[in-house]
């Protein structure tokens, strides 16, 4: 589903964020990306959504080489790759409902579907009563949950989540993880960057550990950290 071959990513100013990364994530997998702050987790996820392009090497998503994907196809790629952003990226001028609905409107779902599915999904993340709020009228954790809801409202093939529980208390985090697990069980590939010890240790899924842009551990049914 996701395949990186010898990927190097340098940001301008010779900052190496990913250093010769090769890995493969197969369909239906659930992968945790762990590693210290600044080790390249978000960069890896950004390559998958083509928010960034690799400096060298190839990235394949859903069988397509993103390097040769024409510009106009990128939106269609992104509809298949739901993304929970580390900084949420909610539209400030839209309500919670409209933010989540946007993910469906983009793919041309009829209004009736939007009207039915959006409240459902918001109920699932515990925001059933905050449909009409604007993002700046929500707490940090609530914003994060809107971002989660938007990422999988259109049932993408791949779900990419960048610390989706960073602003959530343990109880709510567990709820969100259950949700991700359920989504994963329906066949969606889930790649999640996280710092949450407890979650990784309790789920026992594949763990990819990054350090200074290199994959230093790739363990199925792994735990958060060995040395940490």
């Amino acid at each position, binding site marked *: 589903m996701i395949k990186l071959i010898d990927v190097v990513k340098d940001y301008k100013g010779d900052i190496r964020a990913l250093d010769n990364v090769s890995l493969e994530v197969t369909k239906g997998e659930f992968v945790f990306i762990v590693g210290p702050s600044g080790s390249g987790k978000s960069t890896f996820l950004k390559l998958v959504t083509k928010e960034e392009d690799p400096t060298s090497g190839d990235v394949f998503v859903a069988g397509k080489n993103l390097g040769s994907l024409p510009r106009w196809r990128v939106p269609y790629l992104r509809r298949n790759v739901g993304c929970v952003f580390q900084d949420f990226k909610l*539209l400030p001028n839209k309500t919670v409902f409209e933010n989540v609905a946007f993910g469906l409107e983009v793919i041309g779902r009829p209004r009736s579907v939007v009207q039915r599915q959006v409240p459902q999904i918001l109920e699932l993340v515990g925001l059933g009563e905050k449909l009409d709020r604007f993002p700046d009228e929500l707490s940090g954790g609530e914003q994060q949950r809107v971002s989660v809801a938007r990422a999988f409202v259109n049932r993408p093939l791949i779900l990419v989540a960048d610390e989706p529980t960073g602003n959530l208390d343990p109880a709510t985090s567990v709820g969100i993880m259950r949700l991700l697990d359920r989504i994963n069980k329906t066949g969606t590939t889930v790649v999640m960057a996280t710092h949450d010890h407890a979650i990784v240790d309790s789920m026992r899924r594949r763990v990819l550990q990054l350090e200074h842009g290199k994959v230093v551990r790739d363990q199925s049914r792994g735990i958060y950290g060995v040395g940490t």
Partner: protein
Amino acid sequence: MRLKYFFSETVQNLRRNLLMTIAAVSTVAISLLLLGGVQVLGIMVNRMTTDWEAKVEVNVFLLQDATENETQALQTEVSKMTEVEDVTYVSSREAFLEFSADYPELATGLTDSDLPASLRIKLADANEAEEVADRIEGAPGVDEVRFGGDIIKRLLQVNALLRTVTLAMSVILMIAAAGLIANTIRLAIYARRDEIGIMKLVGATNWFIRIPFMLEGLFAALVGAAVAVVVVLGGNWLLLSRLPEAFPFLAPVLDFSSGELLTVAGLLVGVGGLVGLAGSSLALRRFLEV
């Protein structure tokens, strides 16, 4: 379905970004108002110069001993010229009456026949006065041809100058208005650059993002244009249609036909709408590359 989405999206954004909507509408209104004002001025100048030029005439003074036949032949020949609009015969007597009305003191020493009869020629285009005069010069029965000479040349120059100036002004204002409107739209879109990036990351195509922005730009521009049109027409009605009372000589200059006013209104709406659409589309370009 899609249309409905784009429409409600546009309305919502206009409402939720009220400050930007107001700024955009007022900039468009002010810019187009200036453009409209110059346009009206241009029509007035055109009108005025045309009016002046219509008063240009070529006077053909006839010889005292010109025969009626000669006069007649000359008159028909002249009236056949394409440049000539109208020819009037002014007899010695008529000339004397006019002169004595203008200079009563001097007329006492003169008689009817002291002043020559003449043909007064109105021209289609004042610029051809000299040419027409040259052609008539030396025809049988003709004593002298006068067409105002330097004065006319000067008038024509002034007219040409006035027209050039107003044309230049309206071109400058057209560019200025377009620049100002485009600038404002650019800033309004810049203020929302993050939003555009987010939409792209969520999988929106460029057109899906662009259309509501373009409709917003179009709407703001059209409302601004409408305000400008209302002010121009209202100002015209209030001021210009009342000025002739105080300045009767202005009446012909100010009496705009509704056709002319519609043209100005159309220009404003056209420029506004076009710049609104194109401006937002162009301004979006750089933010769509995510």
